[in-house]
Structures are given as structure tokens and as C-alpha cells.
């Protein structure tokens, strides 16, 4: 699904954010990405989202080298990735429904299919009753779940989450993890970047640990 081959990232200020990172995440595989702040988690996610490009090595998605994508291909590629952001990245000038529908509008769905899919996604995160509200009026945890609904609404092939349970109580965290697991069971590759070691220890998923830009632990490496 997504493969890093000796990927390094050096920013223009000379900072080496990632050093020769190698891993392969399969379809339907669920993984945690951890490491303390500045270890390179965000950079790794940015490379996958094509917000940044690798300085060295290759990031490969379904046999396609991301470095070769033109602007249009970048846009089309991003439609296949669902990303849950730590700061939610919601639009506060429209309803919850319209926020979740955004990827579908962009992908060109008709209104009927859109309504069905948006409501299914909102139902999954338990916010169906709030579709007409503005995200401003929701709690942090609810906003996070709107972000999750938006990430999954277009049935992505790869689901990325940056601290998805950061603002949630343990009960809700478990529900969110259930949602992610459901997606991985239907073939979606899931990568969850998190500090939450308690969360990680509760689940038996592959664990990638970054330290100073290097991948120091990958307990799923033998599967590759």
C-alpha cells in the first residue's frame, strides 16, 4: 500500500527530520506511529500527504512513486488518503454535514449518494443528530469526530490519524479505535500517530517508533 524506501527529509533550514526510514504498510494493516515530539512523526505524515517531498529515497503508493506526481495527480492521490488532523482542520463557516461532505463534493458525487455516505460516516462517529450544527458549537472531542467522519467518508485506501484520541475520554477513544479497526478489516491501511502509550499498549497492532528522525523500532518489519 504505502512503502518508504530509505527516505530522508532535510528541511531548508538544514534540520534532518527523517533519516533513511524504511517500512511497508500493507492494505488492511493497522499500525501505531510513536516517538516524542520532534522525532519526525509529523514529517512522516506530511510526506505521505505530499505536503512535503522526500529529500532522498522514495515514497511509493501502490507502485507509484509519489515524487513523479504532478499537481493534478497530487490532488487525485489525496482523495484516496483520509487524514485526521490533530487541530481538526474544520471549516467553521458551514455545517457539520457540509464539512464531512467536502471530500465528496470535490470528488464529484451527486447529492443523493453524498447524503447517504455523509450520514453513514456521521452515524459511525455518533454525530448523526448534529449534522445541521456548526462545528463551532461542538466540543473538542466532537470536532475530532467530525474530522474522522470527513477522513473516512470517501472510503480511503489509507487512513492517517495525527493524535486522533488526544481530546477524547477513554470511552470515546475506544470507540474511535473500533472505527479504525473496522476500516482496517475491510482492507484500509491505517496509521495512527500518537503519544498515548496507554492506548498503544491496549491494542496488539504494529508499532513504529521514531527517534531523532530514525526508525528505531518496527515490530512488523518481518512481515514485509
Amino acid at each position, binding site marked *: 500500500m504505502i512503502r518508504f524506501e530509505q527516505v530522508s527529509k532535510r528541511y531548508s533550514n538544514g534540520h534532518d527530520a527523517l533519516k533513511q526510514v524504511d517500512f511497508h504498510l500493507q492494505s488492511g494493516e493497522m499500525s501505531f506511529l510513536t516517538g516524542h515530539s520532534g522525532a519526525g512523526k509529523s514529517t512522516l505524515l506530511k510526506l505521505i*500527504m505530499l*505536503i512535503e517531498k522526500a529529500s532522498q529515497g522514495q515514497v511509493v503508493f*501502490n507502485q*507509484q512513486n509519489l515524487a513523479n506526481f504532478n*499537481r*493534478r*495527480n497530487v*490532488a*487525485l*492521490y*489525496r*482523495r*484516496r488518503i483520509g*487524514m485526521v488532523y490533530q487541530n481538526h*482542520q*474544520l*471549516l467553521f*463557516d458551514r455545517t457539520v454535514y457540509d464539512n464531512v461532505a*467536502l*471530500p465528496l*463534493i*470535490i*470528488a*464529484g*458525487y*451527486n*447529492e*443523493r*449518494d453524498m*447524503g*447517504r*455516505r455523509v450520514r453513514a460516516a456521521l452515524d459511525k462517529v455518533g454525530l448523526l443528530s448534529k449534522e445541521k450544527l456548526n462545528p463551532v458549537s461542538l466540543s473538542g472531542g466532537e470536532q475530532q469526530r467530525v474530522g474522522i467522519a*470527513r477522513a473516512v467518508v*470517501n*472510503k480511503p485506501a489509507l487512513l492517517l490519524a495525527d493524535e486522533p484520541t488526544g481530546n477524547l475520554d477513554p470511552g470515546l477513544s475506544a470507540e474511535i479505535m473500533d472505527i479504525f479497526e473496522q476500516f482496517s478489516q475491510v482492507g484500509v491501511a491505517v496509521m495512527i500517530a500518537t503519544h498515548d502509550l496507554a492506548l498503544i499498549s491496549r491494542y496488539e497492532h504494529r508499532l513504529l517508533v521514531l527517534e531523532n528522525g530514525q526508525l528505531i523500532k518496527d515490530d512488523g518489519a518481518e512481515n514485509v
Partner: protein
Amino acid sequence: MAGKSVGKEVSANTASTRRGAINQSVTFREKSDSYFQHHRSVAKDSVQRLWFHPIASLMTLAVIAIALALPSGFYLLLKNAQVVTQNWDGRAQISLFLSDTVSEEQGVELGKALKKNNDIEKTEFISKEQALKEFEDVSGLKNVMGGLSENPLPSVIVVYPKSTEPEFLDNLQSQLANKPGVDLAQLDSQWVQRLYSILKLGQRIVGALAIGLVLAVLLVVVNTIGLAIENRKDEIIITKLVGATDSFVRRPFLYTGVWYGLGGGVLALMTINAFLLWLNSPVNELAVLYGAHFSLSGLGFLNSFGLLFCASFLGLLGAWMAVGRHLREIEPH
């Protein structure tokens, strides 16, 4: 919703059968339908955005309208001035006023003789009676003239010279003035020529004004759309993150530009027509005083449509320039 279950089936099929290298889970038909649907909603949304900020939008529209109305209005005035002067021959004429001692036959003979002159294109003899009748028609002073006991007007030979060169005309004029039987040789083309020159100058000025103000419209649109883009920066970044193409991001701003142009054009048309209406009755009165019938002509359907089209196009062009400048700078980071 009646079609809900059907919709479920259709999209379940398309989702499972269509799995291209890069997202292709929507059929072409669905895509083109929703494409137009999307255009409609973007067009509507961009109008609503203008509507929600009426003061700011109105000010921008007013600036565009003024910039469009000024050259169009001047153009219209010039066009009307040209209609008035169309009846006058732009070519030079020398009128030879004959003394009363010259009979009509002699006058005709003199005209024929002058035609042999190499400098003269043709001549035209106007007898005293013809002159009086023409004067009565043109001036509307028939009753006044009827009260006179005898015709005060002289016979006239109108000479059309071959060239309109000022020096040549002056020579010809003095040469003709010395002919026996000629009281006065008047070069009466000068003021018409001057008027023509003024009109020509006016056209140039309107042209320059139009170019300047068209640029102003462009700059206003570029600037306004540029601000709109800055205001929606976060939204642009988020839509790019969920897979928006450049054209998707561009679209609402292009529509906004077209609305600005079109709205400004409509306002400009209204201004021009109000101005014409305001001028029309004094112009009519003036024309009546001169015994003529003349009313101001408006832009007409074709020109009005052209103005609206050009205005919309300017809006689109300005928006395109603004978007081109800003869009690539706004990227997720």
C-alpha cells in the same frame, strides 16, 4: 426519499467495480451531472457571499460601474455628435455670393465656366428663390420671411474644390473673390472641419480613457479577489488537503469575478440610461428651437449586450489574474 434504495444499489456497484490506480469510484455520467450541479452551487454561493457583505460589494460594483460608464457615456455623446454633423459634408466648400446685378442665367453660366477650372471638382448654382426656400425650411422662420417685401438673399454658387489643403483653399478663395459679379467668396468649410477635428480628438481621448479605465476595472477586480482569496486561505488549504484540484479551488473566485464584472456592467448601463433620460428633454427642446427634430440615441441592444459581455469578461480576467498570483502560494504546510 423515494430514490434512496436505488441510489444505494447504484453506488455500491460503482464503488466495487471501479478501482483505478487513482480515485475513480464515480461513473462519468454521475461525474458530469454533479459537475454542473457543482457549478450551479458555486455560482449561487459566490452571489450569496457578495450579498452577505452588501456595503463592500456595492462599493466595488460602484467603482467598476463608474469606470465602465465614463468611457461608454463619452462614446455615446460622441456618437450623437457625429449623427448631428453627418448631414454636413466634411469637404471644403466655397460659397460665392453673387451681386444683385447678376441674373440667374448669368449665374448658371458663371458656374459652368468655373467648372472648367482644374482646381474645382464641381459647382452648384443656387438661385435667390431656392436659397430663400431652403432658408425657410431649415430655420423655421417661414412666417418672418413671408413678411418681407422682397427676397434679401443673394444667388449663390457653391464651389467644391478638388483639394482640402488650407493653403490651396485660401488661394482659390481669393482668386474667386476677384471674379466679376462675385460679392463675397466665403470659405465655409472651416468650422465643419474644425468640428471634425475636435470629434476625432474626442474619439482619441475616449479611446485613451477607455484603456485607462479598463485597466482600472482589472486592478479593482484583481485586488478585491486577491483579498477574498486571503480571507479564505484556511478553506483553500483544507480543500487542497482533501484532494481539491486547482480548478476546483479557482472556480468560486472566477465566478465572483464574473459577478463583479456583470454587476458593474448592469450598474453602468443603468447610469448611462439615467444620464440620457436626464439629457433628453433639454436636447429635444434645443432641437425644436432650431426647427429640427433630434433625439439622443442610446447604446442600443447590441452595444448594451456588448458592454455587459466585456464587463463580465473583464471580471473573469481580473479574477484569473488574482487567482494565478495567489493560488500556488497557498499550500498546506
